[in-house]
């Protein structure tokens, strides 16, 4: 049995997925080393070591996630989702307030961010829902009520932390998954109109002042408001732009080394990378993420059931939206919201979530030929 399994693993193992993931992880640790090397005090300087621990933990969990046939997850989808919601609520009871938001549950000396895992749980829940609703005719707004409710609950909880970045990621993941299914054109248009109308209302009533300031300074980050909100975005642009073709070299980015990049290890590691490795380095890294996303879509296309396909698209959506929003914000295309770059940003919950997603993708990929 073991040899059969081993053989099957060898034949079906998704090498491109594995290699791409390893490449991003390795480059990410190296970049993290640079990003934190100039920081004062050992608390930050050792983060790359911790990141390696997180990677190891994440990899182990990923192996487990890949080992069990993913169809078992379908059964526990809603239960897991419910546990995730419970954890989100627990945040408000136990959470620590860090820089004005309450996102983490402390566990020993670590802290755990339930909203990260919520992304995967949401994808599983939606996949289960769509798996059990094998309709091929176009869906109307009424058909979106149940999945909409599924996503709305965690979004509301996360917005209350507040964490606009993660909440919007959940919304984008939901949108990406629902766009897989056939939607009536009228429903799509209605959604678009409602969305457009809600923008000013959101601005007026839902956004916090610091969030508004970031949006305002986003348009001209290095302009007049550079000191009242545009600082991060502006220094990030300076870092990226001054990288030119080949960059300033490893450990030699002045923006990074001289402390002009804020949150260089969590939100802005791409700026560090772009500054030190220039356009070529940035392009290579972007190519890796592009490949990862496309590969997830390919796995979805060759998945043997709807659950696997939705799961894969969901994982692809997680990668895509994280990468796109993070790089977009670092390069000034998007306003600054705290969205991490998968495997590049420091953060235990983030790393483990991403690797779990990779494990699930591997799971689907390896089982595309297997029949019950």
């Amino acid at each position, binding site marked *: 049995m073991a040899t059969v399994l081993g053989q099957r693993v060898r034949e079906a193992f998704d090498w491109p997925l594995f290699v791409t993931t390893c490449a991003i992880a390795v480059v990410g640790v190296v970049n993290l080393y640079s990003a934190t090397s100039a920081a004062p005090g050992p608390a930050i300087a050792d983060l790359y070591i911790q990141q390696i621990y997180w990677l190891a933990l994440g990899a182990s969990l990923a192996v487990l996630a890949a080992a069990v046939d993913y169809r078992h997850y379908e059964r526990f989808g809603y239960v897991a989702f419910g546990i995730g919601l419970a954890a989100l609520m627990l945040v408000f009871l136990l959470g620590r307030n860090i820089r004005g938001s309450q996102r983490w549950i402390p566990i020993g000396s670590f802290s755990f961010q339930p909203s990260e895992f919520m992304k995967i749980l949401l994808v599983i829940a939606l996949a289960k829902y769509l798996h059990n609703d094998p309709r091929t005719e176009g869906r109307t707004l009424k058909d979106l009520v149940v999945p909409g409710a599924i996503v709305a609950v965690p979004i509301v909880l996360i917005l209350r932390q507040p964490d606009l970045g993660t909440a919007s990621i959940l919304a984008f993941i939901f949108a990406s998954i629902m766009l897989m299914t056939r939607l009536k054109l009228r429903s799509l248009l209605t959604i678009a109109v409602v969305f457009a109308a809600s923008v000013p209302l959101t601005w007026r009533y839902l956004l916090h002042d610091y969030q508004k300031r970031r949006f305002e300074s986003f348009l001209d980050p290095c302009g007049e408001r550079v000191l009242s909100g545009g600082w991060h975005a502006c220094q990030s*642009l300076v870092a990226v*732009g001054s990288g*030119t073709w080949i960059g*300033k*070299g490893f450990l030699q980015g*002045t*923006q990074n080394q001289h402390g002009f990049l804020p949150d260089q290890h969590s939100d802005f590691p791409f700026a560090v990378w772009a500054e030190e490795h220039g356009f070529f380095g940035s392009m290579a890294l972007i190519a890796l993420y592009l490949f990862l996303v*496309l590969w997830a879509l390919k796995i979805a*296309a*060759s998945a043997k059931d709807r659950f696997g396909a939705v799961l894969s698209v969901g994982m692809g959506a997680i990668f895509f939206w994280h990468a796109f929003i993070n790089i977009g914000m670092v390069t000034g295309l998007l306003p600054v919201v705290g969205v991490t770059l998968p495997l590049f940003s420091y953060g235990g919950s983030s790393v483990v979530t991403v690797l779990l997603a990779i494990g699930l993708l591997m799971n689907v990929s390896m089982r595309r030929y297997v029949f019950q």
Partner: protein
Amino acid sequence: MKNLLSPRREVDEFRPRLRAMVVAVFVAFALLLGRLVQLQVLESDHWSARARGNVMRTIELRSTRGIIRDRLGNTVATNRPAFNVYITPAYVDIDRDLGRLASWLGLTDEQVTAVKQRLQDATDERAFRQYLVLEDITRDQLATLETHRRELRGVDVVSVPVRQYPYGTLAAHSVGYLNEVSAEELDRLREQGYRAGDSVGRSGIERSWEAYLRGRRGFQKVYVDSSGMSRRDRVPGMPPAERMRREPVPGRDLVLTLDMGLERIVERAFRGHPVGAAVVLEARSGRVLALFSKPAYDPNLVSTGLDREQARELLDNPFRPLIDRTVYEHYPPGSTWKVFTALAALGDSVIDPSVSYECEQRYEFGRRIFRCSHDHDEVDMSSALVQSCNIYFYQISQLVGMDRLARYAVDMGFGRRSGVGIATEASGFVPTRSWYLQRDGAFRLGATLSAAIGQGNVRATLLQLGLAYASIVNGGTLYVPQLVQRVEAPDGTVLEEFPPRVRRRIRVAPQHLDFIRRTLAGVLTDPNGTAHDALIAGAVSMGGKTGTAQVPQQRMPRDDPRRAWFYNRPHAWFAAYAPVEDPEIVVVVLVEHGGDGGRFAAPIATQIINEYLGPRRSDPTEPQEAQPSRAPRPTGAPSGAQRSH
């Protein structure tokens, strides 16, 4: 990838939309790539410059302003450190520290309120800008602040150099003062290297020698991190910090021709006279030994910035302390001018100096009657000068003529700026026939009579008079006045030495100059001489010419009428030289509205000459006692009749 085993899988439903997603993902990443091209390729120069600017900070290295010394090496202008107190609103704890700070610095309630207002108004970026609370605190205050430095967050003491003038008001107009460049001036002066907070010479030597005194600032570039701290000397891809340094060049030191000891003597001689001026020159070089203008201002106060009250006091003072009476103001020279009328007559052999005229104290000219101070009886040129007889000069003025007198006067430096090169020098005025024709459409011969005795429209500065008298007593050389003798480097090496500059030889025969020089000795020695009362027995031999210049009768509308008499009093003049044989110095004294020249100006001049030259003549081990001033205090209003003697 087609799955042969399962031609119709349930996943096939998603295929078209998955394909659309692939396209969408490509588009999204192309967008990111395009943005990277924009930032890292197209705009890379801009961002690279910004990145360099981020880590590089230029520390300006101040240069020290040159020191000004007098001819004997006494320091006239130097620099001292001043300590200014700044507050950074973002860091300061208003409630806790402001009260203590105010009591330590002795701030008034008004000032405290102003500071509080400023602190509350400072928001956003302004909260991080230092704001000046008090300038130039005392040593005690500095010590107190230093003691409590650790408790006072956001309070900084910054040392800046401040110009110091040890002699205060003495020679203030000639030395000048500095103050800070204004924002409007900065636009203009920036390319010359001036920065906000720099001082610039505003008047006198400080202004005209600015380029020498100023020096050139240096800089040091340092690499910094985001907190502004200097971080390291080397940054990859950028030059090492030590190569990005330019040493400041200190300003040049100036050695003046002025003698501050003599300035002191002059100041003492002017005691009891509120308004006046004096010039002392070296007769044989044109070097200026003293420029004295009273009242004066204290350049120490003006340089550090006057408060409102001090400024009002300066501006409202009726004696106008800001005016330099030696070069900026010109006056009717009165009878000191008769010398030039005489030279014009002698030079063109208009008359024989031995010819006498009868003085009957009145002179009828047309319908007007011109008067003289006394009944001088028979006067020739020599006695007319000694006794300052107006009638004699009225008589010869008709022979000399307006234009001949003007020609001689201009030749001796009148009507043109002397070129002393400080502040705004007045040129004086020498009227001519054509000037009257142009102004009045007619020329009255009476104008010549007035011009002959230095009245009417004739105007001269003290310096011009001094230089002209010097040219008479030195045998005919008109010099360019000289204030700066040499330029030195801070270590004392002489960089430039300025020899006396001859402006021209005046066109008067030496024997005529000799005649005038000898004759003017009689003004003091002759019992009838107008300055005989000022003669000091046993003093240095000297000659000179008195002047009592009528001033235009004026009403002082806003002034106390009881003081109007003062402003209608004539100016008292004395232009002197000493010793008579081989003259060394020329002294010109003006007491504004002082009255009679012989009574009020001459004693000042004789005292100056005696105190300055006297000790040098006698045995150095037994210095001669300075004679007290014998100048009587001005009393009573003189009669309004035109008199000059």
